[in-house]
């Protein structure tokens, strides 16, 4: 799957680590991920836009983070990315 990930940045202390995978931070990141998704959704390939997905993920452990991923289906995602760089352009349009 061709995808981009928007995640919280590095943290050292326990309290910040807990914050890094909190619902509060997830809510803060959601508009950025949604902006990337909306920009990618303007791609002219209908098969590609139909396969676009947005999702929230939590990783566990000391380095755990909350992240949002925007991705397209296997095969079609790679082809569109190689041809037009839709997700890369979407990141730029979202100011990331």
């Amino acid at each position, binding site marked *: 799957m061709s995808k981009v990930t928007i995640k919280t940045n590095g943290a050292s202390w326990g309290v910040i680590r807990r914050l890094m995978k909190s619902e509060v931070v997830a809510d803060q990141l959601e508009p950025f991920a949604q902006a990337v998704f909306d920009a990618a959704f303007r791609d002219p390939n209908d098969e590609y836009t139909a396969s676009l997905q947005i999702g929230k993920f939590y990783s566990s452990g000391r380095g755990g983070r909350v992240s949002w991923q925007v991705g397209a289906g296997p095969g079609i995602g*790679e082809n569109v990315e190689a041809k037009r760089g839709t997700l890369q352009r979407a990141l730029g349009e979202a100011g990331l």
Partner: protein
Amino acid sequence: MFRAAIRFPITDGAIVAALRGGLVARWGSSGLAVQGKLPDPKVRRMVTLRNDSGPQEERISRRRYGVNVWADDPVDAENMALDVLAILQTMATGSPVVSTDSFSGPFEVFDDPQMTVANKNLTHFYCAFRASVKASTFI
């Protein structure tokens, strides 16, 4: 408050030149094309660079680039794509590219229709990166 106008430099040519220099040193110049668009006629090893642009923050522009690599041997194609990423790490000398980061790939892309050169199928790899460019004062 007075703020001077700024202008960003073109970077595509400098990146293509750096990639061409690095790849020719490793793979030789025979049958190798490194440029912005696919060559016509096609050759057995090709690298193209595409500027996907990006946001500007104050005097820095962060431009995303996509690199497509084709070769008539699957291992050569992947090795060339990995060489591309390595060359890009060393090319940020400050003028015009300040730094390169956010590398992703390379991953294989299956062309439809299949590209061929001299009756040999070409293997296609893709990778992406971000180049940061500094503006100069516009006079």
